[in-house]
């Protein structure tokens, strides 16, 4: 046994050094055999010629013997693999278009799929850094002014006591900026959480321990958990950090543990330090008029309980506590129970699924393309295979040869695809709006690379092998036309399917493009050019009172007014058309018009309220359509004035007669009182987009930001500078003016046009991506179509020659070849349109100002497809038309 193995090894080694030698040895041996055979025949009395002929006949094929002999050698297949590879590479060099097309198709398919999946994976399938994250929910109240669930202390503790669906219930008390007041001060974020926060989410510290129950009591020992990031940056991962004291905003706390590296708050706020909230439960029933502080509640479902069941079980508890809410807006509040993942992802879901669908479609097209390319090549090579088979190559050898080619192409395609995926991924991250969660952390997903590679290998392998599998018939040697029926039909089906899929992609993309166009063309109702926005978010520690804010902002305003090139300076506490500034909203039903019946509570929706200075209207060029604007004198006077938007004026005063009316706003502490100032309506302004670019316009009212209401000033404050100078020129001046007032004040400068364009980032991202995929898909489908038609035309060259010789005109030939293509286009196009119509509903949520079955967009798709596909058909058809009959008849 051992000896035998050693012999094999010896041959293996020897073979590496003298392969050629072995080959010629064998030839010499066979030659000797043949000569002896001839001599034997001569000796038997044949003539020399006859002897030679008979010997050759007896001898049989040499190629097969050679191969058989080679195959006896241990490790013989190593040699054949190299040989197959050389052969394949030679083939690719001879027919580079085929190789390049396959590699490009694979690269595009693999690259796009991998990149998009890597992005979408983080959104759709990423597991949260919590144990059994599928059982974690976020629950609480929602209402029209706050659509993200929250809860109030009194509610929370009542629910926690009586709830049944949850294994455990916890909360966080928000995360906010905090400062390390030590020798090396730092600005950090501190989160306050319930004592059972970590165990409920299934997180355990990587070092040290969790909070003890007594540490979560009011006046308990002050302790803190620090994030891995802080542990690294401040303590260089020193395990001795435990028990150290850390000064947070002047209060000392003991570090008891370090959080895992992937720790994140369920609402994704930044948190460097996590502290026990130490909430006094009893106080929650008295503070904030008995409702308690705002909290954000999370819970772990009992095993086997679904989110819907939990919601149903929580509903009676909610109904009970709902009675504590003031009657005026009690009905507005609803219970919300949803998974933490849903809360984190918001509306990113739809976009992610659409993206995934699009990329899957591209992958299908790529596979179809590879399959039909291989199939066409296989058909064209039938004769070659038949020749090799006749020369003695075994079927296994032929299959191996085909597989080697597929494998080489797939390898090259994969390499190119991975590079492309990395490039695409970086591009996505670069152009993506900030709102797409986790995009920045997206990395290439090796599992999906593997999956797409396997899939394309399967496509290539399957369709590459098919022609090799059937034993090449002797007829293939003689046959002029090698276009076998089944395979030709298969290719046609593949091409039609590719066209259909790209129609679906294209129509999705065209809908998004149209929707995006609508967004861009949206009439904002205001001027955004030449407007600079300046935001100075002052720190409450340096500016402890509203009056301090007011003084600073007024001084800044007069400083800006003196800047050269700045024609006017407006101020406001929020900027249109963004809808995210929730603090600028109130209920329509809370507006009281003197001498009129109040609107039924809970009706009328919300109203945007904005605190502005007189120049706000001038800078944004918002027209005053009735009455007048605010005046500079009124800012320091004692009256309270407001301006209504046209929409609000029409809602409040359908009969007109707006000017001079008196308006008051309801206050809740927490029960309804009407003790605020009485406002006089001085004017009506034009409507301005104020609920995001795609949102419905809300009615709006403008309150004058006056100096006799210093309590209304806070650091939600924007300056609007009208200037014809470029932002880059004015910005340093603005910074230096602010620095003169307070060198520590942070300054954020932008242009209003940028701010508005930022709102369109998301649709722009979605449109760009889907458009990209649609173009990829169309390109590949068209390549596939071109390939099939060109192949068919080449196969039929001889037939064309015969037809022309028999009197067919060139137009007949054009019709013959192009007709085939047109049939495929029409078939694929119709199927695709039908599919697009039924799938369009899915992207309805992403569309603005365009229906999912927009006829113009679909017509555009049809026209584009017809144009491109016809071109792909006509080019080879024209080439066929130009065929010279005489040459065609001699073809091959």
């Amino acid at each position, binding site marked *: 046994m051992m*000896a*035998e193995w*050693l*012999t*094999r090894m010896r*041959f293996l080694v020897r073979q590496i050094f003298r392969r050629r030698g072995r080959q010629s*040895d*064998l030839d*010499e*041996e*066979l030659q*000797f*055999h043949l*000569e*002896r*055979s001839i*001599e*034997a025949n001569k000796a038997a009395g044949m003539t020399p010629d006859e002897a030679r002929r008979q010997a050759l006949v*007896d*001898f*049989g*094929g040499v190629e*097969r*013997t050679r191969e*058989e*002999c080679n*195959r*006896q*050698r*241990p490790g013989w297949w190593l040699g054949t693999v190299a040989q197959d590879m050389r052969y394949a590479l030679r083939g690719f060099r001879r027919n580079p278009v085929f190789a390049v097309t396959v590699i490009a198709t694979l690269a595009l398919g693999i690259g796009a799929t991998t990149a998009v999946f890597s992005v979408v994976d983080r959104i759709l399938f990423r597991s949260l850094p919590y144990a059994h994250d599928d059982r974690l929910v976020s629950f609480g109240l929602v209402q029209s002014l706050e659509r993200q669930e929250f809860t109030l202390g009194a509610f929370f503790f009542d629910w926690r006591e009586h709830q049944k669906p949850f294994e455990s219930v916890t909360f966080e008390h928000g995360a906010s900026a905090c400062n390390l007041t030590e020798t090396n001060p730092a600005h950090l974020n501190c989160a306050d959480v319930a004592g059972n926060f970590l165990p409920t989410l299934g997180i355990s510290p990587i070092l040290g321990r969790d909070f003890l129950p007594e540490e979560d009591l009011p006046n308990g020992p002050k302790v803190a958990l620090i994030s891995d990031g802080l542990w690294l940056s401040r303590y260089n991962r020193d395990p001795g950090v435990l028990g150290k004291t850390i000064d947070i905003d002047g209060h000392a706390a003991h570090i008891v543990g370090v959080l895992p590296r992937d720790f994140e708050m369920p609402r994704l706020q930044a948190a460097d330090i996590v502290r026990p909230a130490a909430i006094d439960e009893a106080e929650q029933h008295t503070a904030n008029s008995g409702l308690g502080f705002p909290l954000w509640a999370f819970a772990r479902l009992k095993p086997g309980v679904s989110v819907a069941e939990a919601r149903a079980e929580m509903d009676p508890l909610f109904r009970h506590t709902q009675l504590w809410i003031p009657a005026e807006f009690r009905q507005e509040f609803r219970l919300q129970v949803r998974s933490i993942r849903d809360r984190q992802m918001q509306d990113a879901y739809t976009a992610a699924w659409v993206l995934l669908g699009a990329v899957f479609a591209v992958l299908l097209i790529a596979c179809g393309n590879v399959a039909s390319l291989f199939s066409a090549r296989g058909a064209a090579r039938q004769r070659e295979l038949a020749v090799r088979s006749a020369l003695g190559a075994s079927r296994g050898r032929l299959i191996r040869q085909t597989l080697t080619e597929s494998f080489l192409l797939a390898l090259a395609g994969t390499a190119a695809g991975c590079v492309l995926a990395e490039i695409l991924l970086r591009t996505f991250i670069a152009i993506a709006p900030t709102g797409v969660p986790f995009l920045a952390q997206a990395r290439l997903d090796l599992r999906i690379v593997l999956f797409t590679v396997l899939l394309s290998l399967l496509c290539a392998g399957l369709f590459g092998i098919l022609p090799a599998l059937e034993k090449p018939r002797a007829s293939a040697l003689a046959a002029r036309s090698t276009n076998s029926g089944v395979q030709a039909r298969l290719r046609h089906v593949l091409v039609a399917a590719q066209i259909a899929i790209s129609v679906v992609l294209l129509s999705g993309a065209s809908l998004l493009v149209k929707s995006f166009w609508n967004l861009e063309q949206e009439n904002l109702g205001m001027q955004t050019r030449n407007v600079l926005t300046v935001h100075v978010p002052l720190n409450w520690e340096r500016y402890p009172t509203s009056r301090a804010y007011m003084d600073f902002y007024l001084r800044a305003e007069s400083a800006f007014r003196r800047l050269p090139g700045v024609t006017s300076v407006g101020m406001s506490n929020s900027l249109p058309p963004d809808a995210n500034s929730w603090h600028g909203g109130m209920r329509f039903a809370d507006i009281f018009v003197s001498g009129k019946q109040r609107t039924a509570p809970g009706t009328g929706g919300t109203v945007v309220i904005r605190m502005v200075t007189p120049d706000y209207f001038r800078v944004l060029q918002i027209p005053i359509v009735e009455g007048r604007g605010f005046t500079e004198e009124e800012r320091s006077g004692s009256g309270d004035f407001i301006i209504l938007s046209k929409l609000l004026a029409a809602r409040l005063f359908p009969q007109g007669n707006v000017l001079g009316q008196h308006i008051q706003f309801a206050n809740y502490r927490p029960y309804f009182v009407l003790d605020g100032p009485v406002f006089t309506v001085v004017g009506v302004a034009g409507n301005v987009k104020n609920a995001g670019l795609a949102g419905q316009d809300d009615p709006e009212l403008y309150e004058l930001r006056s100096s006799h209401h210093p309590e209304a000033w806070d650091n939600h404050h924007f300056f609007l500078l009208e200037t014809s100078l470029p932002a880059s020129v004015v910005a340093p001046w603005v910074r230096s003016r602010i620095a003169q007032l307070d060198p520590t004040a942070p300054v954020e400068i932008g242009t209003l046009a940028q701010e508005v364009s930022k709102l369109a980032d998301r649709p722009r991202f979605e449109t760009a991506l889907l458009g990209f995929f649609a173009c990829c898909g169309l390109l590949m489908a068209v390549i596939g179509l071109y390939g099939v038609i060109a192949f068919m035309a080449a196969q039929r060259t001889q037939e064309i020659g015969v037809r022309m010789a028999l009197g067919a005109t060139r137009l007949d030939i054009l019709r013959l070849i192009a007709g085939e293509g047109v049939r495929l286009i029409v078939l694929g196009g119709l199927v695709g349109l039908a599919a697009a119509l039924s799938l369009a509903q899915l992207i309805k949520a992403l569309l603005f100002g365009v229906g999912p079955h927009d006829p113009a967009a679909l017509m555009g798709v049809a026209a584009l497809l017809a144009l491109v596909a016809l071109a792909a058909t006509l080019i080879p058809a024209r080439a066929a038309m130009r065929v010279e009959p005489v040459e065609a008849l001699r073809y091959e």
Partner: protein
Amino acid sequence: MPPSTDLLQGTLDLLILQTLVPGPMHGWGVAQRIQQVSQDVLQIGQGSLYPALHRLEYKGWIRSDWGNSENNRRAKFYALTAAGRKQLETELATWERLSAAVGLVLGRIPEASA
């Protein structure tokens, strides 16, 4: 001409090994000898002969050397190795057992045991 694949699997190896017992021989010689001894019943074509020779060589049962043939031409001679002799004994034993068994099944008593 019936190809040698009609021979039982492994039988060709046995024949070749047996043929080489008297001394080294080239491929042509092996084929001729088998044909002669079998009285033209077994004709080994080069298509089976050379792969079999190579197989045996790779297994280490025979070894090859270039030498001069009887008419002074360069030819490759195959010779039995020690391992080959041992193998031949095993195979002969197997063959005898097998043919006796086949004989029994076919209802003919092999002459050797008669």
